[in-house]
């Protein structure tokens, strides 16, 4: 049964209980905080930093029997200062410091004093930071303090009500952080540090409300156990799975090591009679079955994390249309065929792809549509094939946009040109640099002759392997490796560093492996990189630079 009704002041014992509860709650949720982390340094460790700081804050408190709230607060202040990590951790340590100062000399706090301490904690945090930024943990701390003060002024105010108000105030402030910070808005998240503080306050509240509960309060029953029966997602984040194991002589280490093999963010703590388990796993039913073998499961909760994170993942997926616009106002359209090559061009910055190439030359109309479709007034157009250049030249006369045609004759030239694109330079500077880079690259294309022919002094039979250097037929033979090595020999490999092999859909794994090792054997000084191009008709296209 809850002690809520009996709590009229916060003494050292209760404050200790609250802090220990906050550690558990933050521990169970810190990975979620990590995933929100974008400001000020998007390194995804805000939750971990805050947890480590908080753990350091309670280090000495665990052993303390002090009943004065001031003593516990001082220990927390000192411990958090020694262990503070990261920006949010440092600010958290200052929150504890402010709180400790506000309660100095007091053995217990009435609701008003408690609220005043929350407010002072926020003030101290503001003072400690060089350039306070709104929409962060600072704002959340302040709003929590204000909400606490408002609650404390009610006639029948109790400490749990004050902490509940602080936690709710924090929650509301967290939800507002995206409206205060552009970077959060862009990423579609709330502030991580602020959310961490909200969790700490919630953890305090939970532990005070459940002060008589038998186990360390670490459960986060976000979703009812009934949802175990839900279908598993085919791919996704997995499930946040939590429960208690009740039994006799439970081996915490053994349970931990077995659970660890089944997921991540594993937290297994407890005593021989009761063990708390938290794990993020793709197979919650297996985890539950395993744990059921150790003892009786309680407070089972399985939460689907994929839903809540889908939005963030979508933003990360690098979709060209989701990219922020370039400051130089220059867009890029490229003519490419083959799924792998399309991906490569998109990843390098192409805003639109016109499908086409050697045998499927796109029309002027196709290219015009793509040029008009990109959100830029100036567009660099890469034809990537000699047979497309003429049609591409027409585009400029048909659109109101500025079109810079960089006359790339091949895929390797197109890649080289695109690599040289710099979003800080003007269209003219880019076109110049891209043209120069395209000219530096040598292209070897390998295909089969479609009929008997004579060309460039070579007699070629239908079906022969033929090698073209910069569009000119140079070698014929029956083997890819042989033709490629001859072509490389003709180019003079000493002048080059890197060969990139774009593998077409017609080349088998074995043919690719053979080609790769034969280039390495013949020209050990050259670096060889293989990319899946997926182009038709050309089993191999090679870029030599």
């Amino acid at each position, binding site marked *: 049964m809850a002690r809520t009704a009996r709590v009229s002041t916060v003494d050292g014992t209760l404050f200790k209980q609250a802090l220990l509860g906050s550690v558990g709650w933050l521990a169970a949720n810190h990975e979620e905080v990590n995933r929100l982390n974008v400001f000020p340094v998007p390194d995804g460790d805000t939750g971990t*930093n805050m947890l480590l700081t908080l753990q350091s804050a309670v280090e000495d408190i665990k052993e303390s029997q002090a009943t004065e709230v001031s003593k516990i607060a001082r220990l927390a202040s000192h411990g958090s200062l*020694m262990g*503070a990590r990261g920006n949010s951790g440092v600010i958290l*340590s200052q929150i504890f410091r402010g709180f400790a100062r506000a309660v100095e000399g007091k053995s217990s706090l009435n609701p008003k004093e408690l609220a005043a301490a929350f407010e002072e904690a926020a003030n101290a945090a503001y003072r400690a930071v060089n350039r306070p930024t709104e929409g962060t943990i600072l704002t959340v701390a302040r709003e929590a303090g204000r909400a606490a003060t408002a609650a404390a002024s009610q006639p029948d105010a109790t400490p749990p009500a004050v902490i509940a108000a602080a936690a709710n105030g924090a929650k509301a402030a967290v939800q507002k952080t995206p409206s205060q910070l552009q970077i959060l808005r862009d990423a579609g998240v709330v502030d991580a540090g602020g959310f961490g503080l909200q969790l700490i306050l919630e953890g305090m509240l939970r532990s005070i409300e459940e002060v008589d509960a038998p186990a360390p309060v670490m459960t986060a029953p976000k979703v009812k156990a009934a949802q175990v029966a839900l279908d598993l997602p085919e791919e996704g984040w997995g499930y946040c799975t939590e429960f208690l194991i009740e039994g006799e002589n439970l081996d915490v280490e053994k349970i931990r090591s077995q659970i660890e093999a089944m997921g991540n963010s594993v937290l297994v703590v407890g005593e021989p009679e009761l063990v708390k388990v938290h794990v993020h796993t793709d197979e919650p039913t297996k985890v539950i079955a395993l744990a059921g073998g150790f003892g009786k499961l309680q407070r089972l909760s399985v939460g689907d994390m994929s839903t809540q994170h889908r939005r963030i993942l979508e933003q990360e997926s690098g979709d060209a249309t989701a990219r922020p616009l370039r400051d130089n106002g220059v867009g890029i359209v490229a003519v490419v065929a083959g799924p792998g090559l399309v991906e490569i061009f998109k990843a*390098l910055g192409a805003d639109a792809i016109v499908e086409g190439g050697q045998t499927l030359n796109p029309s002027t109309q196709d290219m015009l549509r793509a040029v008009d479709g990109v959100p830029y007034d100036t567009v660099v157009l890469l034809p990537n094939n000699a047979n497309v250049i003429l049609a591409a030249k027409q585009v400029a006369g048909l659109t109101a946009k500025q079109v810079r045609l960089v006359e790339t004759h091949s895929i390797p030239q197109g890649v080289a040109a695109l*690599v040289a694109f710099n979003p800080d330079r003007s269209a003219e500077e880019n076109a110049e640099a891209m043209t120069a880079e395209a000219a530096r690259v040598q292209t070897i294309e390998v295909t089969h002759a479609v009929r008997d022919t004579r060309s460039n002094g070579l007699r070629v039979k239908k079906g022969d392997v033929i090698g073209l250097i910069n569009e000119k037929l140079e070698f014929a033979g029956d083997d890819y490796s042989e033709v490629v090595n001859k072509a490389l020999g003709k180019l003079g490999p000493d002048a080059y560093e890197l060969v990139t092999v774009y593998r077409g859909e017609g080349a088998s794994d074995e043919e690719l492996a053979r080609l790769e090792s034969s280039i390495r054997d013949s020209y050990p000084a050259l670096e060889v990189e293989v990319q899946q191009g997926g182009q038709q008709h050309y089993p191999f296209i090679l870029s030599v630079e």
Partner: protein
Amino acid sequence: MKRPFAVVTDSTADLPDEWRERYGIEVVPLKVLFGSETFRDRVDMTDAQFFERLAASSKLPTTSAPSPGEFAEVYARLAKDYESCVSIHIGSQLSATAEAARVGAQSVDGFKVEVIDSETVTMPMAFLCRAAAESPTLEEAVANVKARIPNCRVLALLDTLRYLEMGGRLSRAQAVIGTMLDLKPILIVKDREIKPIDRVRTKARAVSRMVEFFKSEGPVEQVGVVHAQSAEEAEGIASRLREGLGGQEITMGQIGCVLGTHVGPKAVGIVYIKK
């Protein structure tokens, strides 16, 4: 009789040992965490040990700033022999170190600490430390350092963007510069930002581009070449710089564990303060 001021920095300055001894500069280590194991940069782990472990580790390590308490201990110790100190740290856009130093300084009474956010990383910080150490008074040291901060530059050529991306020090939009193809990005650290200035397919050309960029920057007050386990390449770059520098000293430096976590092995850089 106490001496007027001490110079404090952190391990990301990649301060040459010789300067550390000559000027008596205090270096506070940042930390590298492999899983639950914490190592103090260059105290518990040498650069060589770090890169060996990095190569063998399936998961990337993480890094963390010193705690305010650790700074407070250093300042309290210095307070016995010095009147004050200037504490020069890695840019606050990259790390919480300067913030931790500022907070730590507040808990040491009667000892003046001037914490300076260098806005940069690696050896330009060492140059700033030297400028401070060669100043006669704390006020002049602070002024000399602050005057140089806007002119600090780091040009970095990474072997791969993977480490910078995983460590979160490069925004996702910028990370687009290095996907799919094995590109060699050249980055510049200036004005509190890390920006790509070029991307090149091959290392040799990337080195040439970086050297060209440096030469286009005009005269420099101090210059150095830093590297992560790539001494030979760094020497090569230094000799190419020498051609245009007319006998000016080039300081060679090694990238430590914390910075190494974010740039990865084989990174090389040209670092300088513009005149």
